[in-house]
């Protein structure tokens, strides 16, 4: 015999041998009486019951039953407590529903606060279980109510699922409407965006126009530097005019008459200026051709109106050397180059003039490269545009088809959810009957119960 068996049998033996003198009606029910009323079970016990004090401290009315979804369930239905003093009676208020719909009998038993299970009958040949009992009237009603509640919950869940399916479908339809993919015509009719620039930019020129455009751009910068210097000199007071002239003239390329003047000064030297003379001739020709076009000033083909052709740092520094001042003065005052008597290092003059002319030539070469680059990019854009458009179209079609499939799945899911809800609404739970407990006053001790495991 295991320990549990001992815990039950020993007190039973004691109880049966001690007897209960005062209430003979409880003799066969080991000093207890369980009475069912409409909503309660009343437990009375013999004051001489050996567990009387334990019972008086309080007890739980427990239910044990099998269910479809949760297996065998143990549920506390109600708590009971004696009112105190020498009371030997307590009540358990029965709940309207169980945790889940029972499959089979709902067995009740009383568990004391010290976890002992209260025997309510003597063991006999028919039943070895002495503690479990059944209140059939309540059980039928509770099972019915439980079934109804479960069904209601189930319907509520199905409704929520159907609502969710509606919402998801609505959202999907709205997002497809926004893109314009749900307006009929199918995915194959999708129009992809164009990758080609709609208008040809002004700085994209055919190859044959680029050399002259480059020269025009560079002359515009030289003219701009000159005009800017003149404006600054005009605005300045007399004390600062010379400084502005010296700074601006030695920072950016100035019109060719300056380089021409410097080369004229160098005529006295023995330096070979042939290359520079050729460069100057090109510069002069460009200046004569393009410096009179005001439109270029307002809308330069490259860069903006504030651009200049900057001189290299060392060229600028040479230009600002004190030794060069007589040349600048002579140039400003339009004295012939040949009239200069000061001894100025020809290397400096040649260095500055060379720096100017190289800067201008470099501007022309670089500007042509820039224009060529812009033309190349334009042609690449045009060449790539149809291919990119088709790639984009294929991507969009694939995306559209994916979205259409997703939409179809959502429509199917919505239909299924509503079908399930509709079917459930038309069915009733098998044990669902609107019943109410009848008052009984029945003694329950004799109604043994067991749950099949």
């Amino acid at each position, binding site marked *: 015999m295991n320990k549990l068996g001992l815990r039950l049998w020993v007190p039973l033996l004691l109880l049966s041998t001690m007897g209960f003198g005062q209430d003979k009606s409880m003799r066969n029910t080991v000093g207890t009486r369980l009475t069912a009323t409409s909503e309660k079970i009343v437990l009375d016990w013999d004051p001489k019951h050996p567990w009387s004090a334990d019972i008086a401290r309080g007890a739980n009315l427990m239910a044990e039953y099998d269910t479809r979804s949760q297996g065998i369930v143990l549920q506390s239905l109600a708590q009971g407590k004696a009112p105190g003093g020498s009371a030997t009676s307590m009540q358990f208020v029965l709940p309207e529903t169980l945790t889940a719909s029972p499959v089979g009998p709902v067995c009740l038993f009383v568990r004391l606060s010290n976890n002992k299970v209260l025997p309510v009958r003597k063991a006999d040949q028919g039943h070895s279980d002495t503690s479990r009992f059944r209140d059939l009237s309540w059980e039928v009603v509770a099972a019915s109510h439980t079934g109804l509640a479960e069904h209601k919950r189930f319907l509520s869940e199905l409704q929520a699922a159907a609502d969710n399916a509606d919402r998801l479908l609505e959202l999907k339809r709205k997002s497809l409407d926004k*893109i*314009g993919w749900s307006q009929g015509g199918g995915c194959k009719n*999708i*129009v*992809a*965006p164009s990758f080609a*620039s709609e208008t040809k*930019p002004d*700085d*994209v020129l055919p190859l044959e126009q680029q050399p002259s455009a480059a020269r025009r751009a560079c002359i515009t910068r030289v003219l701009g530097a000159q005009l800017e210097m003149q404006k600054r000199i005009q605005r300045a007071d007399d004390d600062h005019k010379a400084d502005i002239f010296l700074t601006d003239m030695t920072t950016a390329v100035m019109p060719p008459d300056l380089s021409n003047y410097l080369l004229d000064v160098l005529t006295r030297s023995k*330096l*070979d200026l042939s*290359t520079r003379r050729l460069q100057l001739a090109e510069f002069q020709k460009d200046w004569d051709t393009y410096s009179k076009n005001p439109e270029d000033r307002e809308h330069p083909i*490259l*860069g*903006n109106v504030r651009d200049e*052709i*900057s*001189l*290299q*740092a*060392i*060229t600028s*520094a*040479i230009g600002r*050397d004190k030794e060069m001042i007589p040349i600048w003065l002579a140039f400003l005052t339009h004295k012939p180059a040949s009239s200069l008597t000061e001894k100025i*290092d020809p*290397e*400096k003059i*040649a*260095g*500055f003039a*060379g*720096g100017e002319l*190289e*800067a201008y030539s*470099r*501007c022309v070469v*670089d500007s042509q*490269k*820039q224009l060529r*680059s*812009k033309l190349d*990019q*334009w042609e*690449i*854009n045009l060449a*790539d545009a149809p291919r990119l458009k088709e790639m*984009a179209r294929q991507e*969009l079609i694939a995306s559209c088809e994916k979205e259409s499939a997703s939409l179809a799945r959502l429509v199917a899911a919505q239909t299924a959810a509503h079908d399930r809800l509709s079917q459930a609404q038309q069915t009733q739970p098998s044990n669902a009957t609107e019943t109410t407990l009848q008052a009984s006053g029945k003694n329950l001790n004799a109604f043994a119960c067991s749950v099949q495991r």
Partner: protein
Amino acid sequence: MRILIRRIAFAITLCLAFGRVPNLYALRFEEKTTAKGSHILVARDCKNFSSDIKEFSDYDERHSCRDGKKREGFLGPMEDYVGDEAELDFLLNLSEHRGNLFSALAAIARYGGDSATVETIQSLLRSPKRFDEVWLLSGGGDVDAGVGFARTLRRHGMMVEVPAGYQCISACTIAFMGGALRYIDGRATFRVHSASMYEGGLSKETAQEFQQDPDAALTRVARSLQIDERYLALRLMTLFQNTLALPLRSVPRPENDADFCGLAGGSYSTISFSDGRSRGYCDTEGRTLVSPHLAYADSRNAERAADVARIRREGPAAYQDILMRVERDCMSLALDDLELGVAERGARAKPALRMLRAMFMTSITDTSYMTHLQLVTMGYVTDSIELPK
């Protein structure tokens, strides 16, 4: 003889005066919140191109700029810094909650002297927030800093913008390419040009060399430049290859400067600073690259002979001009060589080379305006496609 001595002295004086890159102001880092609630980190020049924007020019009038090469920390003068990219990295880490009060204090001590950046650090400590975008406003500066900046931006996956009224020029355009997503407003300015080691002048040693034997000097410098430009081409090409792709879709190619230097024909070294940081550089002095062939260094090259004649005629003004032209010619040679093997260089090598050519077809003394068409077709910006309504 006296004239010759005076010329040498003058030349040296000129070159001494311009022997370093002119002191650049270090960038300022400020935070902004847009009307739509986006948190922006603005990386901008101090003065320079920031002067076009009133709120910045007003601020810069009241708060002095930091010397870009030497920094005044709270603990005293600091050595040549590693670059603005270190500050950017720190601020982005702090905004991503990868920093704390202690590291912030250490950073303030290190970067101290720039009120705007210190204010940004303090603000991030008070209320940490993740930056949604980085805005750029700069006339450029150091190429290495630009590359470092780009790599930092890419590592943090930042969106980068040049908004309306801002300008991004020169090295800024390299930094810009680091953005994982990149936008340039139609009313912003974006201009590219070559890089050059000689924009500010040349060293006294080089000037003396040119004075004494221009032919030998040109040959030596050209050989060195051939490797320098090849190194720069490899670095920039790989950077552009990596940044032309959306970061989600491709595995980046390794950007190992030591490897690039080796491939270019140089020898990679590191300079260490007293504060524990270091910077790498590719030493090309005295080295010769056999392939591709550098015709300019041939014994009787006509172009070099003409340059020598020019130097003898025009003196120091000619050195700088010629060197800057040889630099670009060497870059062109490097790009032509890389173009030959473009098929083996991996995805996006061709568009990366196209971007490099666009940069180097314009001298550093000029700039090339990039139109919207060029910016989109070359891949500078990551424009979105509007679906048809």
